[in-house]
């Protein structure tokens, strides 16, 4: 059903540098990766290795100092900040480590908010869609509760439902289980697997070695560079592990 040969995300020789008090800091160094549609990809590496920077760049949250990012045939460097926001709302679902649900909205309203901002679904359909997504992640009965009344695992499920709200091209999750117990973490990884099987591309930054088997592609970063991968034509390539 899914054309797995199609590259959804592609970075070409991207470098990211920051000005710091101690001078120029290179967070990413000449990184090129390709992620296929429907893949469940792990981005691993130590703290400060550049994982989050890579994630920020492929979601358009940050821009590379050099190199290009193409996501779903769109060159992100061609988009303005405002266009990027709209693009992100329509094409990217983001899951945070600390869930980041808006505290003054109910779970269902949190899921409806991206549809509201991007105007992707008619108003009358939004709640139904939110409920069906909450059902998908298994917390539909919590729909009208506020985030503070839910457990960490439930909040993370809600945040995944919110990431799915606009039926995005891909989902990125930054250490989504970092704040959860192992049982909840497993449930979340299981959910990501299901999403990938249904054709969603899912990129997860994780330290969880116990769940390595869930991923069909693993990108390991150290000191801003891709490691454990063969170099080809002078560019670093991601290591692809076919299951």
């Amino acid at each position: 059903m899914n054309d797995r040969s199609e590259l959804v995300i592609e970075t070409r020789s991207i470098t990211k540098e920051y000005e710091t008090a101690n001078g120029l800091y290179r967070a990413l160094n000449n990184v090129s990766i390709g992620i296929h549609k429907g893949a469940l990809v792990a981005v691993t590496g130590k703290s400060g290795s550049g994982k989050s920077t890579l994630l920020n760049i492929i979601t358009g949250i940050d821009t590379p100092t050099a190199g290009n990012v193409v996501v779903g045939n769109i060159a992100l460097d061609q988009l303005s900040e405002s266009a990027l926001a709209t693009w992100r709302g329509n094409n990217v679902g983001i899951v945070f480590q600390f869930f980041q649900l808006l505290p003054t909205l109910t779970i269902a309203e949190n899921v409806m908010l991206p549809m509201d901002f991007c105007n992707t679904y008619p108003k009358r359909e939004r709640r139904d869609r939110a409920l069906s997504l909450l059902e998908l992640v298994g917390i539909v009965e919590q729909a009208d509760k506020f985030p503070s009344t839910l457990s960490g695992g439930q909040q993370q499920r809600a945040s995944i439902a919110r990431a799915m709200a606009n039926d995005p091209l891909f989902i990125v999750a930054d250490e989504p289980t970092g704040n959860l117990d192992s049982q909840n973490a497993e449930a979340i990884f299981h959910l990501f697997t299901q999403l990938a099987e249904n054709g969603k591309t899912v990129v997860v930054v994780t330290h969880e070695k116990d769940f390595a088997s869930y991923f069909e592609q693993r990108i390991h970063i150290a000191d801003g560079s891709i490691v454990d991968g063969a170099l080809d034509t002078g560019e670093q390539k991601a290591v692809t592990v076919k299951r």
Partner: protein
Amino acid sequence: MNTRIKKIFRDLTTDIPKNLMLISAMMIGVFGIGAVLGGYAVLEREMAKNYLSTNPAAATIKAEGTFFTRELIDSLRKFDGVRDVERHATISARMKIGGDWYPLLLFVIDDFSVPRTNIAFWQSGAATPPLGSMLVERTVYRVIQASEGTEIVIKTPNGKQKAIRISGTVHDPSLAPAWQEQTGYGYITLSTLHWLGEIQEFDELRFTAAQPEIEREDIGRTAKKIAAWLTRKGFAIHEVQIPPPRKHPHQGQMNAVLSLFTIFSFMVLVLSSILVASSFATLMVKQIREIGVMKTIGANSRQIAGLYLLMVVLLSIIATGMGIVLSRFAAAVLYSNISVLLNLRIFDPSIPWWVMGVQAAAGLLIPLAAVAFPVLRGSRITVRKAIDNYGISTATTSSGNAWLATISQWTMMGETFVLSLRNTFRDRSRLMLTLGLLSAGGAMFMTSMNVSKAWDNSLGKITQQRFYDLDVRLHHFVPTVNADSVIKGITGIRSAERWGYSSTSYVLDVPYDIVQTYPDKGHGSFQIVGVPLPTSMISLPIIEGRWLNAKDSGAVVLNHIAHALSPSLKIGDSIRLSIDAKPTSWKIVGFAEDLYSPATAYVSMPAFQSAACVPDRFNMLKLAFAGRENAGIAEKTRLIEEALAMNNVSVQQNISAVLFRNAISEHMGVLVNSLLAMAILMALVGALGLTSTMSMNILERKREIGVMRAIGASPKTISNLVLVEGLIAGIMSIFFAFFFSLILSFYLGEFIGSMAFRSPLSLTVSQPGIFLWIIIILFGSLAATYFPARSASRITTREALAYE
């Protein structure tokens, strides 16, 4: 409802104390403007309505030695440019209250049943006073401490003391309240005037103009034509009084009061807008993470800005609504109180709609403008910056702060103080906002106190420039020897001088005086005063030129009010002043500041006697007593009255320095009180501002506080840290506030003084004002930072470190 709108509503109801503070800040501004403008609009309308309802005479023509008949009045009614004419007489009598004599102005009305000009409205008792009785103005009762139906003893210039019954009460809106002027107003028939012992008839002719909007020059032309016509008929015209048309005698003071209120209410609005801006900056800080999240799920900067601006609009609507409602009550209190001070009757208490329009525009637009910057800045934050925000401010002490580092080295400074000091300076823009808010509040507070003190000092000049305790004015010029025998017989008189005075005017092309005097004979009058030189009774500050000396014969010094009547006059100019309708020539040698006096031309006593053809005679006594206690003055005044009466000298009025000061004080009471009310309002907004900015500081440093707690800082240490920070900001603001208050006080004093009394108030520093503000800032800073400090000390380490 859109999900994002729901978020805004929920956010508004989540942090109720904070939002209530925001609403209060905005409301104070809207309230202030509404109260002032509402009061202003009603008073301005009602003052005009009250004054015009009396059908004020456009001019009064005063004849001498002759009187006007009914037939003459009837023929004058047909005169071109005249709508109506009435004959009249005004007598400067005196009334005895307790043992003291007070001035009493008696208005002799031709026909009480058909009043035509300067109408006094009947309130109670007799509509026409029977023979031997009088109606009194409603505000007189506070002075005479008697009631309708009782009798008081009065004395007219040529009559004997008589007890006259008060047969009724009227309201005369064209007169200032009797208690304010420390004088009485009575309304009598001509028969009663004769009953009192006077032989005088109607010697005044009042007319109203055919055109209601006519200007003073046109009235003057008509008055001159009538005077010429009367002269041809054999009447000796003595004076033509043309007060400023359609202008209440106290219009200047009212304008000063209301201008002051308006300036301050806009200042409050500006102050509260700074507060709103700073509070919204806090809110945006708190919302940065949420903004980041919303941006990651598709919101753009415009949508985010729209959300928070909507929040401001909602808060503004609530604040404006509450401000408008409350301000209407305050406006009612304001116009009611001022209407008492101006002796007005409020016919229509409705506040015009435009006031609400101004309030709504100010209440909605100014907060929006104030928050535009923090909201736009917050909404434009990049997603990365927003979600990377960990609650520790990135602002650090810059390397340029060598002095901070030096202070930090001082060993007597505790670590907590050093840390508080550094924290105070770590975010310059925040510090500027806090200082701006507190300095503005302090500057306005101190300005209120300074201007109030300047008023008080100005009042004090009465005793600094006038060294006499009693000013006795006689009905007629009397030989100098008469005074000497009186004075010699009374002990306790330190010194006495015999002066002369007469009403005057700049001589024009007519053989009579044209003055601006109102019918109360006080407001708008112009007098020429003969001063024995050198004098020990007055010492007026010279604005330009010099004071009189004994060798001067034709020299004149004009006070600033007289100069204002003819501003083109300069030193060395020759002028002609009329005395008893005869022109006299003078050369201007100086201009003097002469607060609270009518327009006055000072000349030497011999020159005055010569010009007025009253050699060796005087009609004014200036007396300085050995002891200046009030009780002693009253007793001596009585003795002098009795002695003069025994020498057949008729006193027109005596004004003690105390009575004069009281009258002026009553005039200025409303100004002083309103300034103090404004000062309190400023202090309140300033304290709210400090609380807001300190809360913002705590919120931004929640994680930092957690770190400090984790490395051993006790809740008390955290609390002290915040309190000291508040105190440092507060103390710094005092210096800025003082500096700005000097500038504000100078301009405000100049504006108000010039408007009310044609003399700017001198720049005055109120030491209690500074002291009070220091106390307010110290305690206010502690009180304002108490809640943020308490909340900071209660943050648990876990909670603070988990803050996202």
